[in-house]
């Protein structure tokens, strides 16, 4: 069974630059969530707004009733705006966990890169914790518009190496995070490079660019995609994305993804949101 019901907000921390961390009392969800899985969250007392919004589970914590589900989110519109205004004690509806998690690297020797763009950082604290526990040494490459947008770095477990990039050069590498990845992969010898694996989450253009970098270096990777989602579990058919080699059909991001292997998305056929 997948959880569906009301949950309580325990904390709602303002991280600055329109970013927040919501801590929700959701033991059933927390107990079974894998990295890159998401939850649908519905806010408001009435039917406006009507639909849930998808959020990756950023971290699983400990709360009064068992696991808490922690969401790292950015205010971009009405749903996230209302969420940001809620006080501890408020209730929201949650459905989850949903979607296919990032698969483990499988190769214990694999160099592992976590490539995050903006609020695409969200799934990586949980993934990092799981990778560290499994003996991997992931390196986080984190790009954002500006220094202040590099939120959530203290949600990561100790022992994660981080490099940052900003569009405006206010922190780390001045430029795109894809360039950091490119550099790293280029520095590997070709055998190691083919064992390398990248986990990627960010805005669509950044993921398309990262996918190209991975393919150029023949490295493996998994991308966690975004889209408007009406349901989150495969029935509204709203979240479709064209897959390579499937000229006549679509994948549904919510159930076939949100994670897809690098090289499997037909970026050409995606319309800008």
């Amino acid at each position, binding site marked *: 069974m997948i959880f569906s019901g009301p949950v309580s907000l325990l904390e709602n921390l303002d991280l600055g630059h329109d970013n927040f961390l919501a801590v929700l009392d959701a033991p059933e969800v927390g107990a079974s969530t894998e990295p890159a899985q998401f939850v649908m969250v519905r806010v408001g007392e009435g039917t406006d707004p009507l*639909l849930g919004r998808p959020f990756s589970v950023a971290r699983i914590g400990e709360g009064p009733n068992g696991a808490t589900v922690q969401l790292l989110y950015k205010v971009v519109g009405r749903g996230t705006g209302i969420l940001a205004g809620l006080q501890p004690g408020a209730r929201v509806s949650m459905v989850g966990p949903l979607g296919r998690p990032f698969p483990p690297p499988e190769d214990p020797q694999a160099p592992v890169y976590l490539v995050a763009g903006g609020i695409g950082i969200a799934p990586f604290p949980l993934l990092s914790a799981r990778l560290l526990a499994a003996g991997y040494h992931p390196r986080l490459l984190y790009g954002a518009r500006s220094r202040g947008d590099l939120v959530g770095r203290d949600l990561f477990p100790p022992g994660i190496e981080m490099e940052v990039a900003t569009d405006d050069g206010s922190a780390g590498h001045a430029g795109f995070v894809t360039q950091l990845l490119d550099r790293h992969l280029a520095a590997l010898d070709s055998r190691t490079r083919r064992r390398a694996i990248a986990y990627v989450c960010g805005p669509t253009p950044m993921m398309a660019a990262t996918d190209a970098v991975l393919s150029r270096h023949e490295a493996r990777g998994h991308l966690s995609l975004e889209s*408007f989602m*009406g*349901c989150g579990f495969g*029935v509204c058919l*709203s979240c*479709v994305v064209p897959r390579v080699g499937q000229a006549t059909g679509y994948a549904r991001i919510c159930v076939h993804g949100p994670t897809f292997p690098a090289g499997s998305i037909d970026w050409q056929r995606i319309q800008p949101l």
Partner: protein
Amino acid sequence: MSAVDLTVKLGPLTLKNPVVTASGTFGYGTEFSPFLDLSTLGGIVVKGLSLRPRRGNEPPRICETPSGMLNAIGLQNVGVDAFLQEKLPALLPFDTAVLANVYGEREEEYVQVCERLEGARGLAGIELNVSCPNTSRGGMQFGVDPVTLERLVAAVRRVTSLPLIVKLSPNVTDIGEPARAAVAGGADILSLVNTFTGMGIDAESRRPVLNNVVGGLSGPAIKPLALYMVHRVAKAVDVPIMGMGGIMNAVDAVEFFLAGAAAVQIGTSNFLNPGGAATMVRDLEQWCSRHQVEKVRDLTGGLRT
């Protein structure tokens, strides 16, 4: 709590309870197994089936509106053959009425799909979706012209022995007219409403939100319009009605029964509350019990005016 009789009889179709999930909002049924026991439902209407698989429209396909949503999925579906081979058998273990929603671009396509469905094990009935653009009539919907509609229903009636539901479009001046035409053509049951034609615009990009430009409005926003149409059709014809449009809870369902519906369909609500249809069956039983209603069917048409 005294036992409430939830069974309803809609002409040739008997349902264990009047809560049915609506086409296009419940997949092929098994997608909801993680959320509820399908056997608790009165029935399931599967996603609209065409003769061949259809990939549907380019995204974006949905758009949220105040208390509603627009969709222009473009009838993405696996096609009738894959439905019969893969989807329908998966529903056999469940004690619920499976209804096939059928779609065609031309009259012959409707007929052909229904022919294939004839005799299928585990199929309780057919629902004709006549709100799709009629390609042989320049894109006008089948459901808005009474003459075309009656002919279509009669053509399907000839090839199917299953209970035949015709699902009416609300985009008409007087829904009594297509209702009468569908009954004249041989419909056993009418279901209504399908979605209302609408549009979303993004002021920033100055583009329609939906790739298809227009889409169908569903959800609580349309409930008062749907209630009125059910009330109107119940006065216009004598066949049983399945009412729908924005139903979110058992009280909403009761309102549709009072307006004249013998059963209800739950659509958009499934997206935000995936276990909701099952909860509604329980809540409906409790509502009846609390209100001394022994048989839920006694509510049908019980509006006091």
